[in-house]
């Protein structure tokens, strides 16, 4: 199916998300849509898939204009989208989920189509497993098959490689090539250049809501794409990563056992020095969140003691700020503005809002947030929300504990987040973070703790590790020697 987009516009309040976009996507190809966070990629895709309505402009399929504006209408004309978080019903089996959304009578028919696609795409899904038993990558595979069974001719994937394993990524790329060979149109949204290079037939770059140049056939030189994505900023030298010198002990952990419903760490003892950046490495779910929440005082150890600044840690502390991975639900109040957040943080019994507003304007400048003081945070892009969260951490914070500090962000946004974190660290704040991105852990940490199989390592000096040796430790090779 050939999609023609003409003069598409979309704004949220004063923020223009898509500005006069015109582009064609030919059938039988994989089209990369590149741009940094907040460039307008997701907005464009959400309009195609009917989640957002168009402010103006038109969409034509095979030359015939279609009326979108509701997911069901997009599905009916054959446009299906696999979101960043697959929307499915966890207690249903794979087949039940597909049947619920497929609008096809006859379970045998669905089972047959499922088996056929499963085989063709090289997935190894077992149709009677419940969704809640699957990994993110497998749920994504289910979504893809569901859309294909529903008759989608256009498949939109929004940052599909976030949170899936390398093997699943290979399987996904293979499947997408097969789908394109079947004559279908694949729109592949990402901010990762190498993925576009490896997979896509064409590349379309968005920047600040507008199309940069025109769609280009791959291959295109990396520098050209970078220039398109970031403009002149890409030419700026990246800042140098400084080393921080620890001073004094912040946490004393003594024979601590940390336990959650399905995980148990320890017993172990540790002393953690202040004023440095500590990276937690390991496969996701190896206890990093549990560890961070204990350092924050949000959870108390099953046994043993944690002392913070030489005092027993008995509950969450205001000067130890924890940034959860699910920021939109746990980190900020989506319908409230920056002004209201600042008012919540800085308690003045009766604040007419003016001092808060002054402060917000300062934060917007300092942290380069694209927002007005009174706009609800839910209307900002991911990168801006993340910068806003960072901006909202009070200067008095001694500790910032953060999960996936730059997940889902493009290189520029990620670097600017790290720039702020490093600044904070230089001024004496201790940063403890975990990331699935090995390179990120290696680049920004002064010290590293490796999590593996319910245990954690000593605090390792970053300079004693290489990316390869760290990767081996995460996989358990040689872990016994560094174990706590």
């Amino acid at each position: 199916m050939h999609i023609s987009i003409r003069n598409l516009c979309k704004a949220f309040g004063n923020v223009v998300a898509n500005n006069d976009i015109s582009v064609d996507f030919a059938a039988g190809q994989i089209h990369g849509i590149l741009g940094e966070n907040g460039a307008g990629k997701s907005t464009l895709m959400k309009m195609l898939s009917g989640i957002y309505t168009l402010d103006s402009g038109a969409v034509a399929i095979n030359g015939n204009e279609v009326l979108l504006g509701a997911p069901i209408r997009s599905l009916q004309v054959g446009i299906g989208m696999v979101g960043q978080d697959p929307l499915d019903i966890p207690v249903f089996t794979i087949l039940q989920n597909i049947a619920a959304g497929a609008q096809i009578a006859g379970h045998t028919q669905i089972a047959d189509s499922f088996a056929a696609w499963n085989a063709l795409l090289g997935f190894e899904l077992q149709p009677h497993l419940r969704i809640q038993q699957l990994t993110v990558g497998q749920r994504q595979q289910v979504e893809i098959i569901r859309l294909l069974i529903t008759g989608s001719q256009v498949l939109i994937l929004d940052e599909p490689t976030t949170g899936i394993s390398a093997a699943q990524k290979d399987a996904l790329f293979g499947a997408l090539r097969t789908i394109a060979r079947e004559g279908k149109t694949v729109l592949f949204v990402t901010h990762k250049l190498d993925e576009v290079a490896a997979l896509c037939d064409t590349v379309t770059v968005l920047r600040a809501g507008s199309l940069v140049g025109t769609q280009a056939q791959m291959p295109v030189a990396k520098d050209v794409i970078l220039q398109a994505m970031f403009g002149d900023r890409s030419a700026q030298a990246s800042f140098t990563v400084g080393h921080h010198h620890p001073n004094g002990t912040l946490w004393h952990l003594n024979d601590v056992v940390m336990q959650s419903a399905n995980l148990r760490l320890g017993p172990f003892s540790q002393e953690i020095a202040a004023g440095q950046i500590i990276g937690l490495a390991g496969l996701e779910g190896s206890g990093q969140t549990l560890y961070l929440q204990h350092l924050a005082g949000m959870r108390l150890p099953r046994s043993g003691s944690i002392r913070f600044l030489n005092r027993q840690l008995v509950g969450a502390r205001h000067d130890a700020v924890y940034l959860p991975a699910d920021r939109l639900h746990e980190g900020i109040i989506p319908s409230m503005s920056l002004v209201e957040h600042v008012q919540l943080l800085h308690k003045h019994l009766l604040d007419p809002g003016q001092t808060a507003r002054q402060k917000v304007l300062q934060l917007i400048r300092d942290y380069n947030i694209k927002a007005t003081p009174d706009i609800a945070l839910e209307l900002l892009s991911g990168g801006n929300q993340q910068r806003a969260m960072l901006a909202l951490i009070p200067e008095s914070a001694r500790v910032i504990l953060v999960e996936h500090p730059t997940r889902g962000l493009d290189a520029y946004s990620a670097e600017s987040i790290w720039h702020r974190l490093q600044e904070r660290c230089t001024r004496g704040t201790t940063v403890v973070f975990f990331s699935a991105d090995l390179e990120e852990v290696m680049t920004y940490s002064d010290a590293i703790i490796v999590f593996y199989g319910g245990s954690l390592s000593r605090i390792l000096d970053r300079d004693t590790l290489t990316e390869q040796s760290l990767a081996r430790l995460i996989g358990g090779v040689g872990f016994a020697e560094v174990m706590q």
Partner: protein
Amino acid sequence: MNNLRLARAPLIAILVALLMTTIVLATTDAEAISAFTVMFSGALTSPSRVADMVMLAAPLLLCAAGLSISFAAGQYNLGIEGQMTVGGVISMAVLRQYADGGNVAVYWIIALLAGALAGAAWAGVVALLKQYTRVSEIFVGLGLNFVALGFSLYMVFGPWKRPGVASMSGTEPLPDSLWLPVIGTTRVTLITPLVAVIVLALFWFLLRATQWGLEVRASGLSQPASRRLGVPAVRRMIQAMLVCGAAAGLAGALQVLGVYHALVPNLASGIGFMGLLVALLINADIRFVAPLVLLFAVLTAGSIQLPLSLSIDSSISGVFQGFLVLAMIVARAFISIKERA
């Protein structure tokens, strides 16, 4: 432009409610225009009817103002009838201690405070059970309504029954000197609407102009996020429930002191639930509490004239109010769906 958009949902809702009520009236061969005329203006045709309307509006205002705080904290306080009832019972317990020659004003103040405290305590049970046993405040609140009603019936027909015979008309009336003074020959006691308006103003200020109010709203919108921002979310939610319960208890005490002058079997008489209707209608936005309470009071008091002048039962105003709330909720949801799209 923006104001016009804000007014869309209410306008649609009023039209739908009028239409649906007309249909109900038409199916019973009643004359719709005159019925609406009586409903909307019946309460304003004589001083005594205005008085009835005011004495209904005051407790309703207290309940709706309280609910706008508990709703802001994300709590559905369906137990408000029970909180009002318990407020009435406890204030009655205070007033029964009065002996001739006592300082009336002191008894009034203690009775009103005791009523408010009792309502707050009743709401506190809901809030604590919600926090510590994870039972929905809706179920706890509804359950406690029955307990409160049973408690008041027990007092009316048991320990506090009239000498010789228990009566549906309530306990022995309080001595005349304890009755709140009325204006002229009407049934309006100045103190009742005055207290209601002061409480509304206070709640408005609390919710819209103080840090406490901002924190209550934040807790209602997202508990984990507000906790992360340093807001004591659980405490704010419990406090919001206590404040709402206090307003309801105060309303119950005012009914005893100013309207019934006794404890009657059904003291709350649906005023709490009508307050819930008002809160739902205006999305618990405290700015609209006063006008909507006035409208509901006018409709309810006005429709009392219906059986006399048109031989239509007064409950038709309930049909209109019900349709109004339903249509408003649907219209609002519909518009927000359209806007999100």
